[in-house]
């Protein structure tokens, strides 16, 4: 994936991509099933194709409280065919929903960058929805370790 530059990030916000960040609630940890339910709700039960998604996340988090995440979808972003939403789900957090990014054909690029909080080692699952009603997905595991003892 292209590294999202600060300029690109500013362009992104300028172009009006709206972002919903889901808060952190203490309580029972999500199961993979809850994450799957969130995704099913997003896709309306349609199967997402494993393609077109680039996820930039560390393999091992340096600090689980603030993990840099960048996602990008390979999409034309024309009036006829653009990514309208990107859903980010973490299958090991107290609540699986992390963020939903909203785009329009005017966004130019389907890219977004933020920092997320991860309670433990888990999978981050990204699902993109296009204006044509297609769904694409990708995922990456991030380890949250106790640390030390290396080298």
């Amino acid at each position: 994936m292209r590294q999202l530059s600060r300029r690109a990030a500013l362009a992104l916000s300028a172009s009006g991509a709206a972002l919903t960040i889901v808060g952190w609630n203490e309580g029972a940890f999500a199961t993979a099933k809850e994450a799957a339910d969130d995704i099913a709700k997003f896709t309306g039960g349609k199967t997402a194709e494993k393609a077109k998604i680039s996820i930039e996340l560390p393999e091992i988090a340096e600090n689980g409280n603030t993990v840099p995440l960048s996602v990008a979808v390979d999409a034309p972003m024309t009036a006829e065919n653009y990514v309208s939403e990107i859903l980010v789900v973490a299958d090991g957090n107290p609540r699986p929903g992390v963020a939903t990014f909203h785009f329009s054909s005017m966004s130019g690029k389907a890219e977004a960058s933020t920092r997320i909080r991860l309670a433990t080692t888990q999978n981050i699952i990204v699902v993109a929805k296009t204006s044509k009603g297609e769904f694409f997905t990708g995922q990456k595991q991030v380890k949250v370790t106790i640390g030390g003892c290396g080298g």
Partner: protein
Amino acid sequence: MITRREMLQVGAATAALVAGAGGFTRALAQQQLTESDLLKFDALGNVTLLHVADIHGQLMPVYFREPSVNLGVGEAKGQPPHLTGGDFLKRFGIPTKSAAAYAMTSEDFVALAKSYGRIGGLDRLATVVKRVRSERGDKMLFLDGGDTWQGSLGSNASRGQDMVDCMTLLKPDAMTGHWEFTYGEARVKELIKGLGFPFLALNIRDTEWNEPAFEPMKMFEKGGVKIAVLGQAFPYTPVANPRWLMPKWSFGIREEDVRANVEKARKDGAQLVVLLSHNGFDVDRKLAARVLGIDVILTSHTHDALPEAVKVGNTLLIASGSHGKFVSRLDLDVQNGVVKGFRYKLIPLFADAIKPDAEMTAAITKARAPYAKELARVVGRSDSTLYRRGNFNGTFDDLICAALLKERDAEIVLSPGFRWGTSVLPGAPITMEDIHNATAITYPQVYRLPMTGERLKDILEDVADNLFNPDPYYQQGGDMVRCGGLGYAIDVTKPIGNRISAMTHLKTGKPIEPAKEYTVAGWASVNEGTQGPPVWELVERYVAAEKSVRVIPNTSVKISGV
């Protein structure tokens, strides 16, 4: 194969030294092993790369016992560098009891150490660098893979200055790092300023803006070839070492950044792309298969010494060992942006055979002078071989664990699985230099804390997964945490959470209870504000009280899935 033949030059020069039952004398070994044999190399092509890595603060020649246990998991199982002892010798056709066998394996370590003596020393390295430089002129690049500034009393006390002062005399063309960062951001920046050559790290970004924090690459022109050297620092520095020492820097493998820099280098006209990497061998092997366009990866971090280049697709992986024992020479014939041929030799720097460079000897003496008395101070004697390297335990760690159990009045000790640390031969005195060679870090406090059995299990599982995760990108490149007073069984093939079983409190012989609290002492905590005396003080006190140290073979870790 060319590389095999080159490696055998070392073997041939020393094959005559195969010892009888009584071994052979040191004088004979010195006679047989000559500088010209060690350095013999039929030059090839238009570029020569010299590579050192993981010197770990060792200015002087050392004894360093290579591992007898070095397990590979997943696709790396049974592959170099995960070969030890007889298997290693067989794979590379090295005669037993030869100089090469002594340098690269733990086989007959004590007997061969007595015959062949110490290896390494920056003044021996200087001799080789100067000789190759005069032979190859502007065709040569000399590259330092990092972990150079840390690992000894002098390095720690001077915060890397001793190594910088000596290394800069060798005029490296570039370096990258890992333990260097444990001196903190301000000191690292200060030392880099005085290097006179670039410190490259394409995979470090600032935590505020997520923008590159170091020079990613440097373009050279050598032998008429445009060479791009890309630097890759140890990706997990803020995880394996204290993040609070480098809070403004974020690391990571950053495969996409490696790819982008390789593409940029090619676009800018590089005919040869070299990754000067501190990833660790298995990480680099995976990276080489996924990022195309890298001609050579100069690996480091995992301290592997391999007498042959490992080829992954069109990429050559070089592993140059540690503690200043070796320097790698790789000659390349680069034509129109393609490597048409190569010749490789891992040169062991036998201190008795290679003439020290006078200028460097003087610099080393000067660098050590402020600490000379303390370095030489004898605190006891060892009846056993003291060494660290190996996946599960080392006798030096057993000594440290015993010292901490006693001096901190603990039930259990956790000691980090570092891969650096020199060896002490049986019968030899234990000096403060020896103790610091195994403990010299900037966060040496020995904590004393209650921990539940469950917490202890979590720690063992966590560290085991850093070592035995089948995906190299999740490996951190250290060895298993060493335990004092605690036995366990490990199945290296299982996933995290299921590798460790049969945890036993050795003193009572009882199983570790998950809910019960145990008094645990340990050092090298990555947490800020850790309180306690420095580890070297406790080891010194223990050795001084024991006078003579004998380490009994450690059978408290039961390994399966090998």
